[in-house]
């Protein structure tokens, strides 16, 4: 039979199928496949599937590492792979960030295994949502246009909202999820408004093209020495949207409540992976999309960085709950990571390298700290700072690990964090302007303030008595133990052999160069 008469085939314009590089897209596809498999397994085997879901999710993440490694291996030959007219790019930056997301996701899965199985939670959906959030992050690392960035942002946010409220029968968890959701949606709205202004001004969504149009006046085509009001507004709105995600002050209010209400593994996930994803987006926007408008983003980043450091640190000093402490310290850490962006216009390469190093090291030490909090909470059932008292007397291994993480976060050599902080100083001092030096001094002062609360935690662990003199040891399940070992080793290696990290994190991203 001939259907051509029924269908107006002749009128159909030839469809130009976009070229798709399947190798480049394979990490995403594998993650997606495992996500679907998890759901399928759950549907078919129902409750019998429960015991395998965590393992399956973990395996999924490890399998996803394979194409990332092969892509990295090919990188020297093929160079960056570009798809969809520049909207989707696989380069060194995106590969290293993907690897960080997947590895930190893996550690979160390890943390979750016993916590979720022993608690009263939906299990397979948990891992399914976790994988899809990680998928969003992996997509984010490659997205180089406004629309992909927005979709990736939602893809990683929406599962996070739900995961935050996963302790269904706890009011606090409900509050955590709802607060996170409302603030997240608010941030999306602001960001979207900024993006629409950008699109209006440039007519482009691809970041490199946006950058080109930001550098010249749209009407006359002359190159712009300073920004126009609309461009300024657009850039500010987009950045503010992501400032919510990375919990930079003054957009940090959701973080403490959400962190303390959500299940601890989810908190670790939000504080590490989700936050890093926000930074990845910011970095891509700043270095690829807005690079021509350094006069706009540099002062904004300066303010955000300074405010985050100061506010985060000062409020952290007064916390009595260790998760809230981590939340505020996370705000302060966000300030540190934003600091190089305040000088990015002048010392782009170094600023980028310092941020990437910081993110890698930050992931290891923060996840580790949450792993210890989780392990300690298995015994004490509490996350108040007092519950850490005397940890050394009954769980010396955990105590040493927590000490390592706390002082790594504080940036004391030779633990991992020092090199992260050092690189930030390096970038800021390299720029060398008056404002940069003031920022450098602020960074120095804030390192000291931060040390106060990190050291206080360490002191409680070592110098105080265990509450009620209860010295029964903590039983650490194997998956949690594995997470601890991974993070401790990473933190120490980053500290002793910073050269090993910096080799990977020395990547290029800057628009047109």
């Amino acid at each position, binding site marked *: 039979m001939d259907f051509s008469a029924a269908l107006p085939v002749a009128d159909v314009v030839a469809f130009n199928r976009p070229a798709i590089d399947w190798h480049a897209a394979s990490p995403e596809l594998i993650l997606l496949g495992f996500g679907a498999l998890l759901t399928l397994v759950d549907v078919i085997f129902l409750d019998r599937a429960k015991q395998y879901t965590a393992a399956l999710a973990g395996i999924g993440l490890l399998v996803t590492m394979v194409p990332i490694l092969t892509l990295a291996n090919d990188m020297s030959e093929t160079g960056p792979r570009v798809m969809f007219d520049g909207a989707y790019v696989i380069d060194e930056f995106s590969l290293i960030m993907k690897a960080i997301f997947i590895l930190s996701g893996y550690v979160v899965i390890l943390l979750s295994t016993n916590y979720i199985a022993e608690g009263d939670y939906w299990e397979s959906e948990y891992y399914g949502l976790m994988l899809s959030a990680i998928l969003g992050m992996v997509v984010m690392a490659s997205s180089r246009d406004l629309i992909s960035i927005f979709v990736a942002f939602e893809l990683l946010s929406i599962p996070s909202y739900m995961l935050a409220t996963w302790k269904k029968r706890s009011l606090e968890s409900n509050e955590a999820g709802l607060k996170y959701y409302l603030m997240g949606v608010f941030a999306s709205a602001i960001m979207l408004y900024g993006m629409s202004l950008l699109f209006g001004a440039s007519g482009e969504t691809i970041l490199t093209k946006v950058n080109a149009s930001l550098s010249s006046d749209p009407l006359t085509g002359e190159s712009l020495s300073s920004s126009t009001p609309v461009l300024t507004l657009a850039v500010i709105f987009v950045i503010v949207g992501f400032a919510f995600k990375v919990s930079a002050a003054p957009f940090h209010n959701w973080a403490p409540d959400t962190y303390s209400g959500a299940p601890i593994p989810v908190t670790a996930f939000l504080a590490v992976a989700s936050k890093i994803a926000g930074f990845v987006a910011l970095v891509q926007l700043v270095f690829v999309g807005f690079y021509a408008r350094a006069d706009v983003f540099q002062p904004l980043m300066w303010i955000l960085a300074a405010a985050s450091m100061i506010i985060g640190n000062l409020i952290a000093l007064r916390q009595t709950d260790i998760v809230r402490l981590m939340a505020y310290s996370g705000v302060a850490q966000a300030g540190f990571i934003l600091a190089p962006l305040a000088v990015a216009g002048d010392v782009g390469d170094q600023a980028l*390298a310092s941020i990437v190093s910081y993110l890698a090291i930050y992931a290891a030490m923060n996840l580790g700290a949450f792993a210890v909090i989780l392990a300690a909470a298995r015994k004490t059932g509490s996350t108040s700072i007092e519950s850490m008292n005397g940890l050394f007397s009954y769980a*010396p291994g955990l105590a040493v690990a927590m000490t390592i993480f706390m*002082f790594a976060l*504080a940036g*004391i*050599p*030779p633990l991992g964090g*020092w*090199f992260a902080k*050092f*690189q930030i*100083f*390096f970038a800021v*001092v*390299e720029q*060398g302007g008056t404002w940069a*030096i003031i920022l*450098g*001094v602020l*960074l*120095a*002062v804030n*390192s*000291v303030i931060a*040390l*106060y609360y990190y*050291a*206080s935690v*360490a*002191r409680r662990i*070592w*110098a105080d008595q265990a509450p009620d003199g209860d010295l029964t040891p903590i039983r650490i399940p194997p998956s949690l133990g594995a997470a601890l070992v991974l993070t401790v080793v990473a933190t120490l290696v980053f500290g002793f052999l*910073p*050269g090993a990290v*910096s*080799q990977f994190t*020395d990547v290029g991203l800057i628009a047109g160069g």
Partner: protein
Amino acid sequence: MNYDNDWFLSVLTFTPLVGALVMMLIPKADEAFHKAIALAVSGGLFLFGTFYLLTEFDFDNSGEMQFNFDTNWISVINSRYIVGIDGMALPLVLLTLLVVPLCVIYSWNHFPEPANPKAMLILILILETGMIGTFVAEDLILFFVFFEVVLLPMFFMIAVWGGPDRRYASLKFFLYTLFGSALMILAFLSLFFLAEDSAGNSLRTFDIQALTEWGGANLTRTAGLLIFGGMFMGFGIKVPMFPFHTWLPDAHTQAPTVGSVILAAVLLKLGTYGFIRIAIPILPQAAVVWAPWIGLLAVIGIIYGALGCLAQTDMKRLIAFSSVSHMGFVMLGIATLTTFGINAAVFGMVAHGLITGILFFVAGSVKDRYHTLEIKRLGGLLIQAPRMGWILGFATMASLGLPGLAGFWGEFPAILAAYNPANGVSETIFRTYMVIAAVGTVLAAGYLLWLLQRTAFGEPSEEFANDPEIVDANKFEYVAWAPMLVLIVVLGIFPNLIFKTSDAAVEKSLHPCLIAEGDDLAALDCPAVFDVEVAGG
């Protein structure tokens, strides 16, 4: 010169760390084994290290860096793993090697509460790695890392084994030092970016020797002063200089005996060593401008520390304040920027390390017996524990600078050096300082004799008169103290053991414009900042 023994300093630095790692793997219950390992590692390292250094170190070339090792470390920032030792670092390394095993021996049978010898010994060994590493590091970043490595163990030592106020003291110690080092690292980074050779090429190096050769040549005056200021904060807090000294009395009073000894004997020297190894050689011009201020803070420290001593009621706190005063002499010597002054400072560091070390040891032993260090409750040590009383007397004599003992050679030349400071440094000002410092020695004699009189002489107070716990020094204490006592005498009689070693290195570290005279100076064509200022002129 090419040395084929480049492995030596790395072995020296990292052996204690390896020992600590081994101990971590051994269960806590096996205390004797832990002590044995710690003693074997630190003692063995002392014997081997001293022997090797004394035989292999080329004393005729003590100005040169020896046992050099230079390899790639963090390539992105061009920071290298460079270690080396010269005549300036050698006495301090030997001091460290000596003090650590003595501390292990001293604490053998009485670890302070909450005991746990394993943890404490591990911390001591990590400390040793940090201290030796700082003295041999020849790269700014490496130096910074080692400089910070000592913080954590000392923090825990005070926080866990300290006195009743340990929480406060440990945090204060940590925060002060970290604040200084945060500014210091900013200064290091600025050097990295601002250093340019005469052709205008950026050096971009952290190599201390390379930077010393560069000597701040192209820096603007403001930049130089600011960078020096950053380093000054880092090193000055560690020394500690007035007005940053307030962490020291607290830390010393609360720290366990061994912690106090290590803190006084070695950790404080990291700051002064930073001045003479890094700040002054790299930025001689800024140093000239800063020198009067450093000298001022040094003499304020001398007087303030001495007056502080007179106001103390606690023996350990008194010794801590005397440290502030003595480190003031060291800093005064350094502030003169002359070979003579800095040699005196190096000697002063070693002498102070030995003398204050022994004072803290004795104070710790007194505390063990009397369970208090309140001076007015003590007394009659010479009757109840005569040998210990005499040792205390000996140490106070050394501390107040009695000629013939080590303390004298730290103080006297420093005062003398102030008579004639380096080119460009005002003689008028420094001669004033000299007079004030001389007053300080009188005060020192005052408070130390006062201490001795109230604790050692007289009748024992009633509450302790028949206390069976008060016994004379035991064998562990003798073993721990004897080497220090002997050295105090030996160095007092043969000061040249150190002066001769350090002299060449000190001279090499100072910018020629600082120390040249007459025609030599004219030939050097020095910048205006080095113009000679004559007293009254």
